[in-house]
């Protein structure tokens, strides 16, 4: 914890905040507003948890992007998981955040209350353990997540093969960050002039995964960690670039993120998975932004094994999570925010996950 505390130091934060204010006043002389999108949900959460927005100058705006894997999960995916639990008598194993995500009409928590076998796991390997201990039952793990979460989830297959288990499979809805960044940069409604790039995702894919992107779109970008000082340093770095009119990719999080990324994790992903188009809730289909199991692992692919579709679904039309995820509106500009949509009864997925933009706003900034 000492290591972490170093990145929460009050005096250091004060000094960096002062620098940020100086840089911001130089920007305001040039009539420039810094519109920084933090792409990752853990950044959103940390910004809210430490009250970072409140200590920033007026012309430095933080805009929360689509970086929470739970928030971009389609309603149809939740519907499919509920069908598996209720109509096919399959045991669902999942990370806890997924329980409250609204499908077309119900959540997995509702299905559990109605008798569905839904198990909250802290680690994907807990699901393997459950499958091993209950050989007569079928288990499906909900494979949600970005590059960070994908490797541990697909290690289920490796483990299941080793243990000769045939009663466990994965319902995949894996998402990739770089194609989403690409879509955001191309989207004319998304008005940002700097990106705060994710920490742990970058540790997997490596800093160089963004080099082309930064050049092509000519947009200042800093890879930053999740601790408050990391974020403040990241913001400071972006403001420096904006003041100097420079565009470059800076890796502020070198203590964790290497240029090449994590080869072991990347190879593991490549062995089991291939890219495919993926539907992002509220945003739509982004080409080649998902990962699905390769054909040779069809036995572990729950959508094939049970022939369920994760496409379609009818989320509440009034929900503006899509606009929130693209940084077009702030959460409190959605007409449902803090009225019909609260963490207790979320309508949109951004209100569900602790890392969702709306939940962070609700929890910390109302």
């Amino acid at each position: 914890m000492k290591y972490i505390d170093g990145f929460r130091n009050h005096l250091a934060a004060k000094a960096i905040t002062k620098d940020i204010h100086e840089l911001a006043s130089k920007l305001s002389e040039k009539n420039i507003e810094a519109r920084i999108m933090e792409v990752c949900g853990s950044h959103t959460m940390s910004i809210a948890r430490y009250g970072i927005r409140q200590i920033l100058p007026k012309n430095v705006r933080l805009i929360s992007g689509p970086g929470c894997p739970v928030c971009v999960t389609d309603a149809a995916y939740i519907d499919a998981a509920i069908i598996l639990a209720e109509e096919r008598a399959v045991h669902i194993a999942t990370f806890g955040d997924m329980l409250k995500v609204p499908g077309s009409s119900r959540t997995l928590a509702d299905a559990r209350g109605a008798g569905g076998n839904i198990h909250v796991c802290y680690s994907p390997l807990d699901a393997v353990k459950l499958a091993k201990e209950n050989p007569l039952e079928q288990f499906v793990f909900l494979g949600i997540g970005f590059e960070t979460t994908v490797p541990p989830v697909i290690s289920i297959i490796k483990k299941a093969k080793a243990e000769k288990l045939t009663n466990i499979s994965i319902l995949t809805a894996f998402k990739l960050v770089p194609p989403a960044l690409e879509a955001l940069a191309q989207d004319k409604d998304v008005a940002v002039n700097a990106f705060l790039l994710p920490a742990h995702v970058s540790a997997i894919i490596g800093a160089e995964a963004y080099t082309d992107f930064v050049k092509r779109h000519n947009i200042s970008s800093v890879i930053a960690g999740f601790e408050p000082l990391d974020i403040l340093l990241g913001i400071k770095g972006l403001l420096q670039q904006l003041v100097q009119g420079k565009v470059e990719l800076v890796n502020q999080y070198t203590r964790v993120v290497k240029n090449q990324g994590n080869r072991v994790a990347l190879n593991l992903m490549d062995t089991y998975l291939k890219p495919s188009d993926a539907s992002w809730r509220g945003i739509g289909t982004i080409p080649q932004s998902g990962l699905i199991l390769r054909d040779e692992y069809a036995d572990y692919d729950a959508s094939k094994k049970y022939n369920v579709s994760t496409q379609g679904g009818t989320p509440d039309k009034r929900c503006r999570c899509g606009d929130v995820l693209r940084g077009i509106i702030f959460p409190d500009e959605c007409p449902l925010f803090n009225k019909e949509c609260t963490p207790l009864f979320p309508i949109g997925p951004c209100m569900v996950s602790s890392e969702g933009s709306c939940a962070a706003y609700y929890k910390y900034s109302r």
Partner: protein
Amino acid sequence: MKMKKTERILLGHGGGGKLSRNLIDNEIVTRFATDGPLVGLPDGASLQIGSENLVFSTDSFVVSPLEFPGGDIGRLAVHGTVNDVSVSGAKPLWLSLALIIEEGLEISVLRRILDSIKEASDEIGVKIVTGDTKVVARGQCDRLFINTAGIGKKIPNLNTGVNRIKHGDVVLTSGTLGDHGMAIMAAREKLTLNNKLLSDTGSVHRLVAAAAKWAEGVKFMRDPTRGGIASVLGEIVENESFGIVLKEEKIPYNPDARAVAEVLGIDLMHVACEGRMLLVCSSDIAENVLSAWKALPEGAGAEIIGKVTNDKGRVILETLIGGRRMVDIPQGELLPRIC
């Protein structure tokens, strides 16, 4: 507006957050708390028999695992009820003990737990004076459930209540927060990253007695169990003209509890304690109470963590880096985040 109704009891209804509150407000308060001592849902009922002022309280214990680092369900069952009686401003005297045992429970486990009940009640000086034992078929409960109820004698002049809290009062904690909840989660999930983290299960009766020396200035006492200090403080300020501002740097946390919370993505302000208390008092006696608490082993980690302000109905945290943010009542279950 479209009404949303949850038709069944969800686990979140037992989490100590908003969902629990809704259940109690809609189903219990409307039936039982329209008049009498249950109004306002205090930790214990204040009852008068002749000239005697008594406090009566009850609590059920369903913790899993039964035995955990720093305690077991037996100690918890004594401390939980003793603490509810104590923070209601009374000296605990008598306890009832009801056991619901699942077929197949090892007698050796039951013996160890009964021994801890004896030990814990002897330490505090409360007597088990009545009880009940039921055995249910396998699968009808999880090994062992315990209910205790307690009666205590009101301490003179110690009249607490939210209505006595005023702008300028201060908030104290008797020690590090969230240890119990994190110790249980670490034990349940077999997180081996730290083996030093112990539950804080313990009695607060001596802390209450110590603070009672300045009874006039003591405004409010509560043991922050399910839902943590966020729940307790959130309930205090709800619909009130005052708010509470906490200083993050002053809030004491055990480094091992913080490590577990970081890994699971849980806010320690939402996590249960079973041997701590929060106290709101006037500023002139705060240092006295603090040093009286620090002189006791169970109060060694006490700190003044915040003050009552005019931030109407809100609990605000001044963060380590100087930002400010709202502290919200937890919603339902504590769910670990995924990345």
